């Protein structure tokens, strides 16, 4: 049996204002799996992802990523953990004063790669997401869908085995959403573990991946696509 890529055991997250964001979350995501985290706005999807990439610590419970107990108090090497994962968010977080290639290469340069090597590898990844024609363009010249593809390329450039995506299609129209989903599907087929948070149930109906449903910070259920479709 495969060791889980992600394990969460009885995870609670309560903010100082006493707002409970997550309540008793227990889940497992296996290597190579594509898992949707689905729920309405404010259901705790983003908090869950932020805990997975150590942007926040849970109030209690245990979280294990890549076999590393990230919730232990002595765990300090967040940056080493982040090198094993790609992060994509709804607001892209791209550097507006740089070109498409520079944005992707930046992720390599700041982790020790020489500039030429970084640029070349960035070109390769940009080809993979269909942006080879836009490499030299400014980020500002791109559409939202294209910007999201750049963000995905940047998340992938270090070949992480795990990709965490927080509403990556939240700002995209239907056509762009399909384009981006195509990239994610392709990545999944090549073995990348993907955790994809979304509030759009339409997506989980379209793709036959496991969906972990959150409601008010609690895990409502976990279905295969057929079950989700059945429950509407």
């Amino acid at each position, binding site marked *: 049996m495969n060791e889980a890529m992600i394990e969460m055991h009885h995870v609670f997250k309560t903010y100082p204002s006493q707002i409970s964001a997550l309540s008793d979350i227990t889940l497992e995501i296996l290597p190579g799996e594509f898992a949707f985290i689905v729920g309405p706005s404010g259901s705790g999807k983003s908090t869950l992802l932020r805990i997975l990439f150590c942007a926040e610590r849970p109030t209690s419970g245990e979280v294990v990523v890549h076999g590393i107990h990230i919730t232990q108090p002595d765990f300090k090497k967040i*940056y080493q*953990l982040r090198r*094993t994962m790609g992060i994509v968010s709804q607001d892209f977080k791209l550097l507006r004063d740089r070109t498409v290639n520079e944005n992707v290469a930046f992720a390599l340069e700041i982790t020790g790669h020489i500039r030429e090597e970084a640029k070349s590898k960035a070109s390769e990844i940009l080809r993979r997401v269909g942006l080879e024609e836009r490499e030299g363009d400014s980020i500002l010249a791109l559409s939202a869908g294209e910007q999201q593809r750049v963000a995905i390329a940047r998340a992938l450039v270090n070949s992480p085995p795990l990709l965490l995506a927080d509403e990556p299609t939240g700002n995209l129209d239907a056509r762009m959403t399909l384009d981006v989903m195509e990239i994610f599907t392709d990545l999944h087929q090549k073995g990348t573990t993907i955790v994809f948070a979304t509030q759009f149930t339409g997506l989980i109906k379209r793709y036959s991946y496991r969906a972990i449903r959150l409601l008010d910070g609690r895990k409502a259920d976990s279905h295969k696509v057929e079950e989700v479709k059945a429950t509407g």
Partner: protein
Amino acid sequence: MMGNLFSNLITIGIIAISMLIFSTFTLLAFNLTNFLKIWEDKIEVIAYLKRGTPSSEVEPLLKKTRLLEGVETVRYVSPYDAMGFMETKLGGQKNLLEGIQPAVLPPSFEIQMKKDYRNSTKIKEVVAHLKEIPQFEEIQYGQEWVETFSVLVHILRLTQWILGGLLLIAVVFITSNTLQLTISSRREEIEVMHWVGTSPSFIRIPFYLEGLIQGFLGGGLAILFLFLLHQGLFLYIPPSMQAWLAKIPVLFLPLETIAWILLGGMVLGFFGSFVASMRVLKYK
């Protein structure tokens, strides 16, 4: 650094002004200490013998005085020597001394102190021993001068360090705030760095370097301004005072002190950036 030229210039300017104030006090204290040293080097104790001390007692007394701890040389000044000295001093007006017999002048010992004893504390110790010798009537030395001057230098040094401490806090506060602005202006870039797993030191080191450079430039500017002020001082003082200053040289800070001031500026700049990075560069 170039991206935030204005805020960087402000920081460098503030560091320069703070370091200039501190350096000015350092320069003053340095020169007064130097003056005190020159003055102390010339210091001598004059012990007046009681009138009527038999000449046969002079030689044993000289020997006794020479044996006192801290005494380097002792010279006997007879009433005739004293008269000759006064005539020399009065020059063309020596006729004022006409009719005065040398015998009215008391014989004395001119006592030169050893180098380590040329300060107010040690002189007092020697003078106390001299006072125990019954043949001496009065003992004179520049006691008040030495003490007043020592106190002045002490106050100046104290002011220098208190002011230095206050300026240090101000500089760290200002540098850290300016660097926070710089960091904020690069917030997006830093956030991306955090996301892709850049090591904290890789993110922080450029800011530390920025603080070090700001501190070095601020310290350097302070030294430059102080040097110009020091040079300017000689251009605007009247010639009569210049002749006086020739005897008491107004020195500029020695290289070692300059190096310490530059290093101090760098440490302040670094500390400011360190505080800023602790506040706003936490891994998120």
